């Protein structure tokens, strides 16, 4: 009698834990399942299709950047008064997407959230690829990237020219490169034990050599594991402030100016929340097809998707709160330019985009209050796309509406992107897809050794601390 009551008491905690992996898995089945995707199984047709789409779009990037270098930024839609267009919009959008990977791998690790285990590897990969896509824009945005060294990297030169250190655009260079470096290290350190598993299981000679070199002599000794644990904890600690700092500095790009709609003190936390919001949407967009194609429903369970939906609901509310505060303070300021900025957003020529943004980021995510929606694959997938669009629109609205109507009506104008703007943007999507499909082909997309720690046997065997 007493025994049953104990079981009942613990069942809730047990249920929560069990839900992050399908039933019946052992150490061996996990390793087999994930490693064989890389080592033995032929790539499914959908993988080839995905890669083909990615490469097609990527070739568009080559074409549009090539033409840009030849002609200059005149091929884009930017002009006076809107001198910042797609380049900054897409830069911010991509950088934001990367943030979910860092949050999952660093902050959720520190918060001991076990459900992060199966999604952290490809979320981190997503971070790296998103940073790569983002980095393209600042480099090409002048149309003369070979001059970038002049204005990006401070080096003592004979002309005594230095970059403007008081500009957040300069801080971006340091923030993003630090972020890229730490993310890469974190991702690679986390891969080492799995690379060793692949090395040991590889049958083809090339695979043995390649994974052998990449695994850096990992033997899985107690000393190795000890150092591994220390390294990942330190990297997690280093990566955590980066989740805040990168998008904070991106928000400073706008907020330190005096342009109505840009100069708002709420920008830093609201940009960070928006970044996490869009990043989680992208993780959901990627994980739903992947788990279907590779049969990973046992590893990326409904519990994962539901938790991600909850994170989107929470961060979506922070973003929506930001919109509401912008509206309220624009009025409360009593400043006619602040007030006009908001009226122009809501009723000006770009109003449809503003209301689409409010729908995508503010209204639509409310569906996640219902558990049915949080656990429905079609709804999750559609919502993840809606949020990605919404977050892109947010940056479009911020950049364009504040610039296109200057303080003086004589300097008003409109901004529309050209075909080259769109091709460049689509091209970065292609780069992202290409890198991602190559990643899931050659590296284990789910962390094998961490998955082994969350099955119930691991607790008995004392693997889990």
């Amino acid at each position, binding site marked *: 009698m007493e025994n049953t009551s104990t079981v009942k008491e*613990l069942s809730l905690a047990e249920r929560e834990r069990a839900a992050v992996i399908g039933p019946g898995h052992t150490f061996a089945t996990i390793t087999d399942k994930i490693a064989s995707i890389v080592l033995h199984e032929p790539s499914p047709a959908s993988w080839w299709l995905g890669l083909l789409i990615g490469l097609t779009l990527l070739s568009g990037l080559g074409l549009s950047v090539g033409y840009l270098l030849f002609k200059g930024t005149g091929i884009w839609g930017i002009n006076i008064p809107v001198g910042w267009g797609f380049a900054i919009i897409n830069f911010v959008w991509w950088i934001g997407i990367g943030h979910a990977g860092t949050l999952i791998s660093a902050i959720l690790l520190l918060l001991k959230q076990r459900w992060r285990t199966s999604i952290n590897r490809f979320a981190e990969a997503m971070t790296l690829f998103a940073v790569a896509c983002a980095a393209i824009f600042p480099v090409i945005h002048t149309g003369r990237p070979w001059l970038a060294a002049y204005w990006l990297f401070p080096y003592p030169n004979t002309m005594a020219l230095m970059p403007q250190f008081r500009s957040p655009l300069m801080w971006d260079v340091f923030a993003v490169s630090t972020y890229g470096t730490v993310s890469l290290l974190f991702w690679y350190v986390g891969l080492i034990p799995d690379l060793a598993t692949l090395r040991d299981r590889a049958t083809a000679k090339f695979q043995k050599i390649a994974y052998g070199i990449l695994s850096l002599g990992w033997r899985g000794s107690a000393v190795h594991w000890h150092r591994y644990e220390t390294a990942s904890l330190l990297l997690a600690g280093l990566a955590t402030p980066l989740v805040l700092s990168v998008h904070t500095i991106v928000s400073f790009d706008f907020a330190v100016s005096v342009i109505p709609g840009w100069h708002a003190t709420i920008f830093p*936390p609201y940009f960070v929340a928006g970044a996490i919001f869009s990043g989680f949407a992208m993780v959901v967009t990627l994980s739903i097809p992947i788990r279907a194609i590779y049969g990973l429903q046992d590893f990326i369970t409904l519990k994962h998707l539901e938790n991600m939906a909850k994170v989107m609901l929470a961060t979506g509310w922070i973003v929506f709160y930001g919109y509401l505060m912008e509206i309220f303070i624009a*009025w409360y300021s009593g400043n006619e330019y602040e007030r006009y900025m908001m009226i122009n957003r809501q009723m000006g020529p770009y109003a449809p985009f503003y209301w689409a943004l409010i729908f995508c980021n503010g209204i639509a995510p409310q569906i996640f209050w219902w558990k049915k929606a949080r656990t429905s694959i079609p709804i999750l997938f559609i919502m993840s796309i809606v949020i990605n669009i919404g977050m892109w629109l947010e940056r479009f609205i911020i950049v364009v509406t504040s610039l296109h109507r200057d303080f003086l009506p004589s300097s008003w104008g409109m901004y529309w992107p050209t075909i080259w703007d769109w091709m460049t943007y689509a091209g970065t999507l292609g780069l992202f897809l290409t890198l991602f499909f190559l990643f899931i082909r050659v590296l284990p997309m789910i962390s094998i050794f961490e998955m082994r720690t969350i099955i119930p046997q691991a607790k008995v065997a004392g693997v889990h601390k």
Partner: protein
Amino acid sequence: MSAIPYNTPAELLGEMDRTRSRWLLAGLLGLAAAAGGYFADPQRFFQSYLYAYVFVFGLAMGSLALTMLNHLTGGAWGIMIRRILEAGSRTFPLLLILFLPIALGVFQIFPWAPHEVAEQDHLIHEKSAYLNVPFFFARVAGYFLICLFLSFRISRLSAQQDEHGAEPYYTKLQRLSGPGILLYGLTVTFFSIDLIMSLDPHWFSTIFGILLLGCQGVSTFAFAIMVLVWLMRQRPMSEAVRSVHLHDLGKLMFAFVNLFAYFNFSQFLIIWSGNLPEETTWYLKRTTGGWQYVSIAIMVLHFFVPFFLLLSRNLKRTPGKVSKVAGWLIFMQLVNAYWLVMPSFHERGIHLHWLDAATPLAIGGLWMWVFLGQLKQRPLLPVGDPMLEEALHSGGH
């Protein structure tokens, strides 16, 4: 099952009562002094009262918010301090009574309140649809309704859970906490605009609500840690709380210390860079006339020093040490409340007054008296919570 007896031992109850009466005495003394101060200098009384009230109100609101946050996210840290937070959030009736002096002093405290001001000042006239006395009271009534409803509903569900076991209360608490956190966010935002930001009626900052949320996070975690360590001297908490729980609470307090600095720095940098006269006034008042030393003290003593101290794992896991840092942070939060409120009244320079000490003693003493009274009414651990066992044994996930 656990061998820990959950009932609060009589010895501890006795000690709680003794401490309680000491706080009551302190509160009454403070109240008497503050009342004397009112007759001596009514203007100053209202100003000192407001800053102390904002600080203590933050403890109650923060307690409510962290209770709801823990219901949503889970985690052993929240189970260990659940009863402290619940007791803290059951103090809103007292705070409603203590709001009376602010209600009576509304014309002396808020520069936008007198009718003739709006007629002469263009900007105040522009925002008079929001900044007017009837709407101010309607909003304050709304804040109290939200806080009273949420705190008593949660507290009641939690008591029922103690009695009848986990379900359906576990689910109900979760369901209430989601919208509850949302309401909390809006309440703290407009509370901060009404009671602090509107003291400079021309000034505005979109981050201000979040800034106050950060303040409440620091002071509430610090307060909960101090009370928890105090309770750890005796059963049941001496057996239930382990270093891993303190470590988690210390980390969360550390996180809020960082967030507090982050929000403050963000606001400062953006206003400093923009350098617009309508915005810089707020910082000009706080960087001249002696206030600059308070600003620097907050930066150093509320961020740099606790930052380096709280990096230490050993410190966070040692009850005596972590509670000292927590106590320091509570004091610094009081200083911070002073810094948020007072320069708006004394732009010519800092001007300390004995009422600045009397009012926190009055409000804080009475609040502690009610808080401890609420704390002793229930077992110190949420005995019906389905996650309690796991929290006690594993240190939580």
